[in-house]
């Protein structure tokens, strides 16, 4: 599957753009903790109810569309994470463990996995197909397959938004994500020339990670929800990356200027 990445966006606790993120890595990880994005695209009444994950995701999504020069109201979208909103899930499961089991209706509707996707549609007045997919630690690959096949079948642009939150809850024991992180990219069917990403399924397991950048690899190791950075690194160097999609096969993504 040949596709083109026409814009990217990034928001994390340590950087609000890809450039800032590289500076942060190069500086050895010093810097100011970023406050949550304002998300002014969402009407104030709705914004007050938005979970943190939606704020991260929407900021990265908006930046990717701006970078691609794409109208955010007419693009199909696929949102993805490994667990995502551990804060809301923690609050709901804690409430259910109490005798009266009282749940807030807002918390409940925010607990659907497609909450960020729903707020994105409301904020951009977008009526196009909108989805949420997961694939365990290979959730980013799940989203690439889902959106890639959609862009090619329907010959349209698509937005991929990958996000995960940090913070300490019982879920920290099963997924160690140190920081809030979201990245997004706009995909479209590749033209005959220009940079492409080529995706295919390959039997076996992905080759061991090539540590072209130790700091980046360390960051991803501490933030499995930031796997999208592997693709951005491969795009920058014309290299490749991949993720296992079953016990016996993996998705290989090779990037080139051809």
């Amino acid at each position: 599957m040949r596709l083109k990445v026409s814009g990217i966006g990034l928001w994390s606790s340590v950087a609000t753009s890809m450039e800032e993120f590289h500076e942060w890595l190069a500086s050895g990880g010093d810097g100011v903790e970023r406050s949550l994005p304002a998300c002014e695209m969402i009407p104030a009444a709705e914004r007050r109810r938005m979970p943190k994950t939606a704020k991260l995701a929407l900021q990265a999504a908006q930046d990717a569309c701006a970078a691609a020069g794409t109208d955010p109201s007419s693009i199909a979208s696929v949102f993805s994470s490994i667990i995502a909103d551990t804060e809301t899930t923690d609050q709901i499961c804690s409430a259910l463990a109490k005798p009266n089991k009282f749940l807030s209706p807002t918390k409940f509707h925010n607990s659907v996995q497609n909450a960020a996707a729903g707020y994105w549609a409301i904020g951009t007045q977008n009526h196009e197909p909108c989805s949420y997919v997961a694939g365990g630690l290979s959730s980013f690959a799940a989203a690439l397959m889902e959106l890639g096949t959609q862009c090619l079948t329907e010959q349209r642009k698509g937005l991929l938004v990958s996000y995960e939150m940090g913070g300490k809850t019982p879920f920290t024991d099963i997924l160690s994500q140190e920081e809030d992180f979201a990245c997004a990219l706009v995909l479209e069917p590749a033209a005959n020339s220009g940079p492409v990403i080529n995706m295919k399924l390959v039997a076996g397991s992905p080759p061991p990670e090539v540590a072209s950048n130790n700091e980046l690899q360390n960051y991803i190791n501490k933030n499995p929800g930031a796997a999208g950075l592997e693709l951005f690194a491969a795009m920058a160097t014309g290299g490749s990356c991949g993720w296992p999609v079953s016990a016996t096969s993996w998705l290989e993504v090779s990037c080139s200027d051809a």
Partner: protein
Amino acid sequence: MLHDCHITAYTLTCASGTGRDAVTESLQAGNSGLSAKPWPNSDVDTWLGRVSNNAIESFAIERVWESRNNRLAALGLAQDGFSDAVADAIQQFGSGRVGLILGTSTSSIDRTETAYLNLEGGHFTAEYLQPLIHTPHSTAAFVQSQLGIGGPAITVSTACSSSAKAFASGARWLENGLVDAVVIGGVDSICLSVIYGFHSLQLLSEDICKPFDENRSGINLGEAAGFALLQKQSALTRGYRLLGYGESTDAWHMSTPHPEGLGAKLAMQKALSMAGLKPAEVDYLNLHGTGTRANDNIEGLVCADLFPEHTTISATKGWTGHTLGAAGITEAIICLEALRNGFAPGTLNTEEPSTALERRLSRATKTQAMNTAMTNSFGFGGNNCSLIFGGQPQ
């Protein structure tokens, strides 16, 4: 039109039956699977469409996969020779060429709820330290391992449209040659999160669910496991096919449908357009029909406007309850059974059909030969999907 989307096997387990023949028998006999029996540790007064505990608990599953949702998936996979059909596809195409797309909203949150009752110092205890189980991908990973699927497996989680959208994704995977066959699944189980969550939104009915009744008072939650095998196999000239899908977003509110049904209408129009059908060519429409005031009112207005008098229109949640993330595949399989057996399910429990649908709701199940059947699924986040199936028996 989608040319290469054959459905070569399918199965359904829900409150109204274990296996598709049992479900069809209950549809034809008018036996509801709903009951007023309370759920353990819940004091919410509502009816539920549960699958029998005995059936669910009869399966030995490995401790690492333990959850009610995964047990329900295992029960579903054991019906109608479905696992054998997947084994045949693996034999034919190779395991790496067979994929899985599973729609779910609850996934194994039932297990996470239990784990929270047993936290020690803010940590899961050893018994509940199951890394994949406490993520949305739990049941897809379990089904992938049970079926020996060596191709990609993903979870779609868009609330109540999840397993309908899994069909759309599956069609695209086949179209692009990502795989040669793909298992579509939908598994959702009743748990405290959904009981207390829908209760907090005042959407649960204390009475048996009466879709599209003037006096309807809300949802009865249900649970289900449904699976279908989609293949790109042009050698098959007969059999059932997915003819079209339509996906849209309301962009209106997180838990209330668009007041004019804008997204619902778009999803239906897109599905019709892909299938190359006019509304008049749809023989049977299975409504989302949850039994809430808002859904049935808006869906009724849109469908009365879109479809002519002769289209048979009904809602089947009076048999199954609202199976949430599994509702899409539950009702897709009811459509396939309607095509296979030549009957149109009616609308159980409903006494006074809603004026929103101009009182055109089909109440009684009837014999009807048909070529095309359509189903709607609408979810929180304003997420909509319509599917159209057609074809003849093999």
